[in-house]
Structures are given as structure tokens and as C-alpha cells.
């Protein structure tokens, strides 16, 4: 009997099925479980059941959501925020879980730390109580975010009951134009699919554009799969993946690594494997993109104008456009490049890796920012690398604040917030109302585009700025 050709997703999923129920639910084994300060609800549930943690050796704690970025001295921060960190420390210590706390040189955002440490590997199943866990799919892992009840279930059993999602292949072919990055590709994907377009699906990103992306770019792309509603995003592992992983602290070593690579090469989808849905994008047609509204799907090329709700046929969509423009303090038909900003933020699990900081610094080199801004590297390792390359000097000389690693102003839990009504050019993942603080207004874009906005004080076509420099 000839086996059915399988996709990458199918191969990874099938390797994790502990038990299959008649009603279609599979019991999935979990290889890595990341917990953070917000996981206290789940630890509380475990305690209420009087249960033990099933696999402390597969569970890793990371302080990221609430960590202060301007000081590492905990006695100087808001006690309520400090308590969030203390709870995580107590819970991980009680259960014998390795914690990357802020005094650990490897600390950073969980979705940056996992890959850096080689905890994220191809073919693994990875969960975390954070929707951007999709990021780790860049290595060909099955990685998805879960809520506190499921976190508690994984803590107690190292498994989860899951319904197999449908498979969507997003093929992107062609060369990206200068100034266009993985972030722009991701925003183009979300705009094409809609913010719930991939609900119930696992997206596999394929095509020559994806193959040509660095690991940093692939991580950005998979990170934003959730903003198209997908359960997870995945990219087949290849030599780029293996080169990134070789020598990472928790990855297999020596001959074991080479043997693992042989297994990982076989994870790529078989010829003729069938997807439930297919979608395509032409890379050459993607321009630098910014969001104008309150959802990542409210995205347009930088040379466009804001939409006019009176010209939107669907009444529900028209109502959304009207309310979004109102919240954002914008008018219909306004040129995006005329929108003035108050602040920039370069950071987050979407765009705080070394390549992102290099791209932003390349724009800021020899220039001044005309608005204040914050640059928060994704991890201690990224911070040290950036400082070794002198990028911190570029940011500081431009007038931006160079701070410590954490989720910072992407979600503002640590107090890095915008003031009400302030408008921010941000390399983050969500432009939701109030995401960066009550009344905050967020425009999502790539690191280079955020840097360009810092220089001019308005949303800016990076390509024009580049031409200006010659």
C-alpha cells in the first residue's frame, strides 16, 4: 500500500497523536510548554486540584509580559507588577521549572528566547498561553497559543485534546522590492485573507519568497499568522533553519544534530500532498504597508489614502471603517503619508530580532528622530549583539531610548504606555483600540518604516527617504 502524500503539518501532527477519539478529537503530546507571568491562573488551577506538574523538564518559564525595561531593580517598580513576577518565580520554583528571569542573560520575549536557546526545534509541538506562539512555526514546529484552562491541562498531563485544523497553503513567489520586508509580506497576507480568514486553519507558508527569508523574517511571518485568524503558521525546515539552530544551547549536539537534521528534512510536505485551501501572493506586488485602523486587516500600501465608509458597500464593514477612522482621529480619503505621529516603538515578538534592529538602524544612521521613541530588543542576547554592532549608538544618537528586553509597549503591561490620544508608529502586531494604553492609536509597520516615520514625524514611504539619501 502506498501511503497518502502528507503535508508538513500532517507529518508533525501525526507524530504527536497519543490517542484519537471517534468524535475527531486527538490527544496531542506537547514537547515544549512555555509559561510567563500571565500563567498564574493556570498554576492556581493546578494548585486547586492538588496536582503535580507532569513534566518540569519540558516546561520553561520566561519573564517578559510585565518586566520593566528601564530598570532591572524590582524594588523600584509598581508593586502590582512586581507581584506578577514574584508569582511566576514562586510557581516555577515550586515545580522545579527552569525560569529565564530578568537577571538571566538569556531573558527576553518568550518567542525570541525559545528559538535563540534551541528550545524551539523543527517537528516539535509547542504551546504557550500567548497567541503569538504561532511564531515558533517558522522552524516547522506545530506551535499555537492556548488559554489558561488549557495551560493547566498541559501542566498536569503534558497533553491537549485538539481538533485537527484544516490546512491552508499560502504560496508567495518572487523577489521582494527594495524596502519591503517580512512584515510587509505578513500584513499583505492578513489584508488578503482577512483577520478571521484563516480561522480553523493551519497555514503553511511556501514559495520562493518564503524560502529566501532569513529565520528572523520567517519568525515575523509566522508570528502574524494569528492575526489572519490562523491556529498556527508553519514553514518547512531547510538549511537556513539548520544553520540557525546548530550550536544553540538546548539543541542536539554533534552527530545527534546531524541525525536530527535528517529527520527534519523529511518533514517537508510530500509532492502531491493536498491542502484544504490554497492562496497565492505575488511578492513583487507588495509595497511597504501600514495599518490605518484598529485591526491588522485595516492595512494599505503607504502611498494609499484612508478608505471612505460612504463608498463601502457592506454596511457592517462601513460601520467598522467609520468607527475605526473616528477612533484613530483620521478622515476619509486622507493620504497615509500626511498622518503625523507622536512616538515610535521598535520592539515586540514580531520585530525585535537582530535583523529588525539592523534594518531600523540603517535608516536612522546619521539622522535624528523628530519624535520620542523606544527601542526594546527582543532578548538579552539580541541586546548584546546590537551593542557589539554599535546599533545602540545609532538609536541613542538619533534621540531614541535604548531599553531592556521585554514585551514592553506592544501591550503596555509593564507600564510602557502611550498617553491617551497619542499616535505611535509601531513594529508590533496589534493595532487594537487601547492596545498600547487607553486611547492609544497604533499604526503597524516594519522596523525600517517605523524608523523612517521617526525621522519625518509622519507615516513615510521608506523608499522616498532612501532616494533622498541617494
Amino acid at each position, binding site marked *: 500500500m502506498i501511503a497518502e502524500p502528507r503535508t508538513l503539518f500532517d507529518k508533525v501532527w501525526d507524530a504527536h497523536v497519543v490517542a484519537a477519539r471517534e468524535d475527531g478529537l486527538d490527544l496531542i503530546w506537547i514537547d515544549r510548554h512555555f509559561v510567563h507571568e500571565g500563567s498564574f491562573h493556570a498554576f492556581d488551577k493546578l494548585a486547586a486540584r492538588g496536582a503535580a506538574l507532569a513534566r518540569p523538564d519540558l516546561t520553561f518559564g520566561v519573564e517578559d509580559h510585565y518586566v520593566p525595561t528601564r530598570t532591572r531593580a524590582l524594588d523600584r517598580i509598581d508593586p502590582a507588577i512586581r507581584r506578577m513576577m514574584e508569582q511566576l518565580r514562586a510557581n516555577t520554583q515550586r515545580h522545579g521549572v527552569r525560569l529565564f528571569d530578568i537577571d538571566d542573560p538569556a531573558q527576553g520575549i518568550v518567542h525570541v528566547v525559545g528559538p535563540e536557546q534551541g528550545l524551539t526545534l523543527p517537528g516539535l509541538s509547542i504551546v504557550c498561553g500567548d497567541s503569538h506562539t504561532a511564531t515558533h512555526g517558522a522552524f516547522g514546529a506545530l506551535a499555537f497559543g492556548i488559554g489558561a484552562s488549557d495551560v493547566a491541562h498541559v501542566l498536569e498531563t503534558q497533553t491537549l485534546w485538539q481538533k485537527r485544523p484544516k490546512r491552508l497553503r499560502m504560496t508567495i513567489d518572487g523577489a521582494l522590492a527594495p524596502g519591503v520586508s517580512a512584515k510587509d509580506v505578513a500584513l499583505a497576507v492578513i489584508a488578503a485573507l482577512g483577520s478571521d480568514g484563516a480561522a480553523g486553519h493551519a497555514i503553511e507558508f511556501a514559495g520562493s519568497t518564503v524560502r529566501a527569508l532569513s529565520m528572523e523574517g520567517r519568525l515575523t511571518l509566522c508570528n502574524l499568522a494569528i492575526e489572519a485568524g490562523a491556529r498556527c503558521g508553519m514553514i518547512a525546515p531547510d538549511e537556513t533553519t539548520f544553520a540557525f539552530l546548530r550550536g544553540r544551547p538546548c539543541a*542536539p549536539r554533534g552527530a545527534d544534530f546531524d541525525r536530527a537534521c535528517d529527520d527534519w528534512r523529511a518533514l517537508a510536505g510530500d509532492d502531491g500532498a493536498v491542502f484544504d485551501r490554497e492562496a497565492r501572493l505575488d511578492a513583487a506586488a507588495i509595497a511597504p504597508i501600514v495599518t490605518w485602523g484598529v485591526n491588522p486587516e485595516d492595512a494599505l500600501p503607504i502611498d494609499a489614502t484612508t478608505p471612505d465608509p460612504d463608498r463601502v458597500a457592506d454596511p457592517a464593514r462601513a460601520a467598522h471603517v467609520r468607527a475605526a477612522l473616528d477612533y484613530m482621529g483620521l478622515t476619509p480619503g486622507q493620504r497615509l503619508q500626511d498622518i503625523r505621529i507622536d512616538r515610535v516603538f521598535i520592539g515586540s515578538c514580531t520585530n525585535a530580532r537582530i535583523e529588525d534592529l539592523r534594518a531600523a538602524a540603517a535608516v536612522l544612521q546619521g539622522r535624528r528622530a523628530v519624535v520620542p521613541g523606544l527601542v526594546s530588543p527582543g532578548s538579552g542576547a539580541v541586546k548584546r549583539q546590537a551593542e557589539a554592532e554599535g546599533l545602540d549608538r545609532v538609536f541613542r544618537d538619533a534621540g531614541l531610548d535604548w531599553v531592556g528586553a521585554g514585551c514592553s509597549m506592544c501591550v503596555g503591561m509593564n507600564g510602557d504606555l502611550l498617553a491617551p490620544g497619542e499616535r505611535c508608529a509601531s513594529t508590533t502586531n496589534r493595532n487594537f483600540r487601547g492596545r498600547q494604553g487607553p486611547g492609544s492609536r497604533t499604526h503597524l509597520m516594519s522596523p525600517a518604516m517605523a524608523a523612517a516615520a521617526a525621522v519625518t514625524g509622519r507615516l513615510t514611504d521608506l523608499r522616498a527617504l532612501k532616494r533622498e539619501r541617494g
Partner: protein
Amino acid sequence: MRPFTIHEGVACPLPLTGVDTDQLIPARFMKRSRAEGYGGYLLHDLRFDETGAPRPGFPLDAPQRAGASILVTRRNFGAGSSREAAVYALVDFGVRCVVAPSFGDIFAQNAVNNGLLPARVSEADAERLIAALLAGETRARVDLETCRVALGALDVAFAIDPVWRARLLNGWEDVDLTLSRAAEIAAFVAADRTRRPWAIPQRP
């Protein structure tokens, strides 16, 4: 978990698209213990202004919606952050069912884990239900046995994954079910050790 079979109660229209979990509960409230109750934070920044005063006209605070336990809204409800606190805010407020054309996947899973019914209707039916509520209807009846929502003269079908439906109807908890599979889990782990030796993290 409290089973869900038939629920009848006050329904509230929320004629908004993409009410994300950051709206359902802003991040700054998530440091609190669940024991304090999250109901007061539900949709906080849409309901209240900077001074904490109710924003006039927000549907949830209209007198005829007092005690609302059914929300009817537009597509992509609960998108975004995986924060289960969004479900806690709804449940602690007294909401038992949200009716919408689509839901964020993680939100819907969290909802079912807490006995909250995410009932999927067509966009056209969502608009009809919202219109009827805006025209003055106040009560609705949600029947999970028949998968129908009745509201005034309307009686529309809703969809829900059959596995989720069974869980809600019975009030099943996952974890006890899983623990009964301990032998299968142990067998998987033993076989996996030789099948995927690289899956165990190295000690640095």
C-alpha cells in the same frame, strides 16, 4: 463545569465588528485575582470614559439590557490575545452565550472550557437579530439541543462544533478524561524516545 442545555435571558446587541479580547478586558486589569471577579472589567474602555463614567448609549448599560446573559454581535468576536480573562469577564458578568458570525479560535476554545457557548450564525442572521434587538426586543432563548436561537419573531439556526456541543451539554471537564488515558500516554512517551531522540531538550 455547569452544563448548558437551554438558556433564556436578556439579550444585548453589540453591533461591532472584531471585538477583540483587548476590548473584552484591557490588559491593565489582568493582574487581579480571579477571586475578585472580572465582571466589572468587561468591555471596560468601550463602556466607561477616562473618568470611569458610563459612556452614554453603550448598549450593555441600557436599562432594558440589565442582567444581559446573551450577546449578539458581528464577525470575529474574541480575536487576538489568548487571555482567558476575556472569557472570565463575560462569565463573571453573567453572559452565558455569545451569538456571532465568527469567533477567534482560541477565544472559542476558552469559552467552551468555561461553559460559555459561542454560537455561530450567518452574517445575515446576525444582522437580523441585531436589528430586532435594536428595534426593542429584549429576551432570547438559546437551545443547544436543537441549535437554535429564538428572539421575538425570529428563530434562527446556529452552528457549533459537535465535540464542543457535547462538552457543553454535559458539562464535561477535559482533564479527568485525559488522566484516564495515562497508560496510552506512557506508551507514547516510551515509543517516542526512540522515534524522536532529538525532541528532549539538552541541558546547556
